[in-house]
């Protein structure tokens, strides 16, 4: 399990490093330019009742980080704190956004999603999606927990 978590962190970190590394280096060598600020990415979470929650995160943050850092009020979200051992950060993407993501879900992520309520073909775990600049304006659906479990 530890190996999986590391690989996620590494993949997040490496994604941050690979593209802007040249830019970051040249900027940090150039003293009259302000220190590089990580770019912000706008994300909208849409609750099951249609309510839209606008938020933002930095490039490299996971969608779980965005929820936690902005104290977004989704009951029970992120119970295992991003360690890929639960499915409480389940989010549903549009087909187009899902297809655009650079990484396909790992077997371990799919294993957890298989236990999620309201599983869709474009379901992902928020802890496994790292923000990139190109994701600005991303919209994701937060499946209902309480109401849907009701019979």
């Amino acid at each position, binding site marked *: 399990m530890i190996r999986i978590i590391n690989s996620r962190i590494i993949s997040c970190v490496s994604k941050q490093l690979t593209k802007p590394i040249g830019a970051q280096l040249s900027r940090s060598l150039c003293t009259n330019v302000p220190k590089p600020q990580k770019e912000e990415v706008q994300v909208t979470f849409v609750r099951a009742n249609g309510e839209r929650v606008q938020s933002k995160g930095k490039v490299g943050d996971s969608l779980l980080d965005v929820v936690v850092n902005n104290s977004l009020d989704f*009951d029970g979200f992120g119970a295992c704190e991003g360690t890929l*051992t639960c499915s409480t950060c389940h989010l549903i993407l549009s087909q187009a956004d899902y297809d655009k993501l650079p990484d396909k879900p790992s077997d371990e992520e799919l294993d957890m999603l298989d236990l999620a309520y309201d599983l869709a073909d474009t379901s992902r775990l928020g802890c496994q999606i790292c923000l990139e600049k190109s994701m600005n304006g991303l919209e994701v659906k937060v499946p209902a927990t309480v109401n849907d479990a009701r019979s």
Partner: protein
Amino acid sequence: MFTVRSSILKTLISSNFSKFKYFSTLNNEIKVCIVGGGAAGFYSSQYLLKHLPNTQIDVIEKLPVPFGLVRYGVAPDHPEVKNVINTFNKTAQHPNFKYYGNVSLGKEVTLDELRKAYNIVVLSYGSEIDTLLNISGEDKKNFMSAREFVGWYNGTPGLEELNPDLSGEEVILIGNGNVAIDVARILLTPVDILKKTDITEYSIEALSRSKVKKVYMVGRRGPLQAAFTIAELREMLKIPNVQTIWRSADFEGITSDTVTSLPRPKKRITELMLKSLQEAPKASSDDKQFLPIFFRSPIQINGDSQVESIDFSHTVLKNDRAIATNDVEKITGQLVCRSIGYKATSVDPSINFDDKNGRVVNKHGRVLMKDSTEIDKGLYVAGWLGTGPSGVILTTMNNAFQISQTIIDDIKNGELNCDEKKPGFDYSKFRAVTWDDWKKIDEKEVECGKKLDKPREKIVSVDEMLKLI
């Protein structure tokens, strides 16, 4: 005059605080008692504290220490799953939350006393006993329940003396849920990996002397009905120096067509089993073996005083049920754990309890009156005690949130009147363990763990826990 003024006040309040307009009891604290400090109790507390204004919650717990099966059920090698404790700790910091450990419903307090002292009582004390096979010989030495075995390695008070005899090479697990998988994994994982977890030191000592080489996990039905989840299976397939050996006959009739038509979760787990079946086991005689077996139902436990083998009847599926045939297979095993489910018990004669199904009689979490379809207003049940013992922590979380929302709805809709000022219960006459007391136990456990290079060494004796307070 006063009533008029207070109703004006209520109107004012409700117009100013439209969100809370239904709660005419705004000036009056709603006193809630939650019985049982496990996942259901903590998630109920969390939801009520957040969504029901002016609530005072008292959680009572039979043991001095909190967290129930998160502490005593979750496997020691799954520390990430226990991260939910961080959220429980936050809930416990809420000024309107109080914890009283070492207080048992049905012993120190009765349900009737709690009903008088609180506006709302939520029963969430879980499922404590296990389902028997009801065949002869379950009392033989080294035949035990997986619940006991798990409790033994996880340090559940009272189970530290279980002393499972691990000197035989074969173990049989009857039932194939995640509890059975946990037991198989603990028996087969190299001790060097386990000793870095919060597993009890006495079990590490016993496991390091274990001679177990083969663990059979036997289910009554077929691979498509297997109760374990895919994450647990994948983990089994990755244990170093352990071969997983399936019986190809069990998979007869499962074609690629059947697999494709399954819903995604079933499809993926079946594909994983098939893939593992097709991979020829690496030939190494030193490897330990994990042997899942399907379509076998136990009919007889053999052995003199100690279990030696189990007779299983072959089964066939009819309408998704396992029907025994006349064919019998004997499987030898020197330690056998039954793992066919947990059951709740009634701890207080006032509880409307369904003995047959092992749960409190309820409708969507509202407890019903005895021999009636009428709701017993103010009494609720959350978690396994109401639903029956199945599912992962997420399932219990959702259930607890759902029941808590039902409580809020009932108050909103006027179904439940909480206007009466209730005193709460005075636990000072008992040796109740407060949250600060638990913190002392917690610190001691972490400190003892540090010396052994593990996250904590659990204190198992209740007396020893109480001495620290």
